[in-house]
């Protein structure tokens, strides 16, 4: 086989391997990802699938019962809200009124969060919020 033909074959083989790997990457990422939702988008849904719920903690709703942390999350803009039940590490920055992300599923009207899934946005550099 002449060298240029050999090179061409090698190129085709490596490109197809790359395409296959990329396809695998795309496939697994779509199946492994969690959709982000705001409270108003899943209120009343009965699908039971897992979502990443984003929104703001409603003022005066945070209650701690032993290991269990309960609070309500509302839309970033809007007042529709959902009760959340959470256990695990509570981030230092967690506060009423802050923007949080929590992963879990809706069970009987309560958003039951996965353990340790609570993320609070860092307010430190959040100058826009500090001013409001």
């Amino acid at each position, binding site marked *: 086989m002449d060298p240029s033909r050999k090179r061409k074959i090698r190129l085709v083989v490596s490109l197809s391997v790359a395409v296959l790997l990329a396809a695998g990457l795309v496939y697994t990422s779509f199946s*492994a990802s969690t959709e982000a939702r705001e409270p108003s988008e899943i209120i009343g849904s009965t699908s039971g699938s897992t979502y990443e719920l984003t929104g703001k903690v409603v003022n005066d709703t945070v209650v701690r019962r032993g290991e269990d942390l309960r609070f309500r999350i509302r839309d970033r803009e809007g007042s529709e809200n959902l009760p959340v039940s959470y256990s695990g590490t509570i*981030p230092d920055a967690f506060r009423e009124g802050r923007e949080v992300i929590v992963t879990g599923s809706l069970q009987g009207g309560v958003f039951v969060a996965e353990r340790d899934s609570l993320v609070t946005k860092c307010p430190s550099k959040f100058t826009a919020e500090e001013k409001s």
Partner: protein
Amino acid sequence: MTSLGAAALAVGFLTTLYAIGSAIYGAVRRERRWVDSSRLAVYGFMGLMVICFLVLEIAFLRNDFAFQTVAEHSSTTTPVFYKMTAMWSSQEGSLLLWAFVLSIGSSAVLYLTRNSQRQVAPWATAVLMGLAAFFCGLMLFSVSPFVRLDPVPVEGAGLTPLLRNPYMAMHPPMIYSGYVLFSIPFAFAIGALITRRLDTTWIRSTRRFALVAWIFLGIGLLLGARWSYEELGWGGYWGWDPVENAALMPWLLGTAFLHGIQVQERRGMLKIWNTGLVTATFVFCLIGTFLVRSGVLQSIHAFGASTVGGPLLVLIGITSLGSTLLIWSRRKDLQPERRISSPLSREAIFLINNLLLVGLTAVIFWGTFFPLISEAVTGVSSSLAAPWFADYVAPLGVLLVLFTGIGPLFAWGQLSGSAALRVLAWPVALAVLTVISLLIFTDVSSSPWALFLFGFAAFTFVALAQEFGRAAITRRALTGESLPVALGSAMARNRRRYGGYTAHFGIVVLLIAVTASSSFQTKEDLRLVPGQSGKVDDYTLSYEKLVVDPNNERIAFNARLAVSKDGERIGTLTPARQYYPTQDPSAGPIGRYFEGEATSEVGLRTSGTGDLWTAFQPDLAPIEEDVEAGNKALADAGPVAQGIAIVAIADAYAADPPAATFRVIWDPLVIWVWIGGIFVVGGALFAVWPTSSSRQRAEVAKAAKAAREASGSGANPGGRS
């Protein structure tokens, strides 16, 4: 003082414009005067940036709240060290830091290349100053660090407590210095492409800057990881958060570039690849800045609405598109001088490692931007969590370790099969032995990737030991020095190679530690009241008591935990939770001391085999009544009475606290993450240090000069001692 800073900034902006103009004019007309003038303008720009930087630093130190950024990020009670580092917790401050570091780096590289690189340097000047103009323009027209507040507030908001950690204080300047210094090899690559001077001179004159950038970025990553481990209270050092990924991607591409250029220097191959890599590395540095500053992705570091996202995106677009077109138009000048003749060659292994690093970056890029990608495709934003990243990173990391070991064993060019067998024999034998003994004596088999990684790590260690051993023995045979001395002088004679090997050793140690601590950690949440105890792995932790530790900045609750193993007390851990006051008046005069930001201080017991890590989460509900009462009774009381009340409330709480949650983690080998990291940085520093030959040349020149002076002054020339 704000006006001095603003004036220096405005003049700096104009200086960059002048430098761009005169550099390009000088390059096109081939007039040295204009090129020299542009270089002097760059030095001048550095002076102006130093002024801006000092003005702002002094304002922070003097609590000059007339500066808006000082009022928003510092306060009179902020400790001096954090006053000095509060600058880069703000957007405008970090932009200034960018421009400041860029001015220093540009001046340094233009000074070093002032007598060489006559054609390439002016274009590189134009690129660097183009970036400088961009960042100065942003500060001048959009987010100025020199905004004046009127009236001047008496007190500032203070630095966010989470950032009061020495690691976090130094993390941003390290990351930014890394980002900025990668612009130097990029700028010279562009210069070389424009002028078609595509030999290895642009690489040789900027290689050190690339390595220094890589070192800074690496230190920044380590500091950030350490901060997360100590400060964030979740017990990890890496969470595949977008902002972490943003800094890791250019580091991985930079690693690929540093290896790719060796192939180009030695074999004249991978020219398009290397120019592409340096462009990609720099573009990812810009993307890193963009991710941190734009808030497009959900992240714990979300910086909120920002005005610099749009312009940065435009800069990223121009940079990547312009460079791609330029490389494409020069593809004929970038033809390789040779082709890879055999897979049994160092260049082939380097190429594989390059592909692995780029593949790793591609995976991380995809995962990081998946929320945007999925929103574009399906209309719903979805995100990928740490396990998805781990599924891809683990196999790629394992292969990287293997090829890190093989690379140095193979020679450039081609190795015969029998020679390959000879160099591979010992590493393979000892790797197999390691895997077998791990299978027999430990339960590593529960995690196959970990088993592979440990095996390949053993392979790489033996390969490195062979290299160091051979160097020492050869040197001893030549000079008759003792073995350690011979090793030292052999290393000093080829700093680049042995510095590189040391960094390889460090990265493999680091990856072993990452694997062990992520695959084999034990994590428990204990709920304890004082007097109770719980068991985690082999350790028993007893909650002894709660201690209140107030000072003028914050009030801290320290939990004392006695640690025992096999019934024997081996130490005390004191995880703490600190409450900083809020400025929000609705919390009440007493409540504001408990309702502000809180931070965790972890209790840590470090040893070579692993860390016992504890974080403490108290339940402050019982104090609410006291705080309410205090808010009413002491609304008009002076600060002294309020202070006494606060300490009394805290003491009463600490005397009989309710059950608190302790997160306890046994993290095996985690200390080796940091030790490995130190080896990586140390090895790279060793490599970047001036080589002995260049120092020898300098010494010879110095001696010659001294001799000339000595003979000139009529001293005794024979007096050589």
